[in-house]
């Protein structure tokens, strides 16, 4: 069963706008990771946030983690057409392997 659930399932925005995707999970985690998948390609790791961290930045990416609500959000600022992809959250809990959600399909229109 999937641990993480992304919301929304699909998101369409204009270039230059910000994109926000959310991930909710059910059990306690050690860390939460976000991956990107371009069409027809494998997943690429974007960013990892540990359970004792609340916010993390990497370039145009900002990830937040609220362990009390068991949720995370990924914000992509000033989006570009090249950001069009599926985005997956993945959770890591003790004693289990990384578990992926079903993904959010982001479309950035030029």
């Amino acid at each position: 069963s999937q641990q993480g659930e992304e919301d929304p399932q699909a998101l369409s925005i204009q270039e230059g706008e910000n994109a926000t995707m959310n991930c909710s999970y059910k059990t306690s985690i050690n860390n939460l990771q976000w991956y990107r998948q371009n069409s027809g390609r494998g997943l690429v790791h974007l960013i990892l946030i540990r359970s004792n961290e609340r916010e993390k930045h990497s370039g145009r990416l900002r990830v937040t983690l609220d362990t009390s609500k068991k949720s995370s959000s990924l914000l992509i600022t000033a989006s570009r057409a090249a950001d069009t992809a599926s985005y997956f959250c993945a959770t890591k809990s003790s004693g289990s392997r990384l578990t992926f959600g079903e993904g959010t399909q982001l479309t950035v229109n030029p």
Partner: protein
Amino acid sequence: NAGVTQTPKFRVLKTGQSMTLLCAQDMNHEYMYWYRQDPGMGLRLIHYSVGEGTTAKGEVPDGYNVSRLKKQNFLLGLESAAPSQTSVYFCASSYVLVGALQETQYFGPGTRLLVL
């Protein structure tokens, strides 16, 4: 540095046929994984390995077997393919940090399998 590579990229099988998917990584990673990705179901773990000579079942292991005879290679076998195994298969690998639970994974480009 090729990272994670998968062979073949695409294959068509008839029901009942067998095949082996090959995954290779050149990053000296300890852990390797096989996933399948189906529309609306995200990634599901089939089998994984935490080191040379070891394998373990994931979420959906039935109908698949794996072997990790060499650290850099992880093979996924389908002994008798079924239409339900039509999917895109991804291999991944990750390093291990002693005392850490990071498990950041590096993915191959995928193998598209169609079982008729």
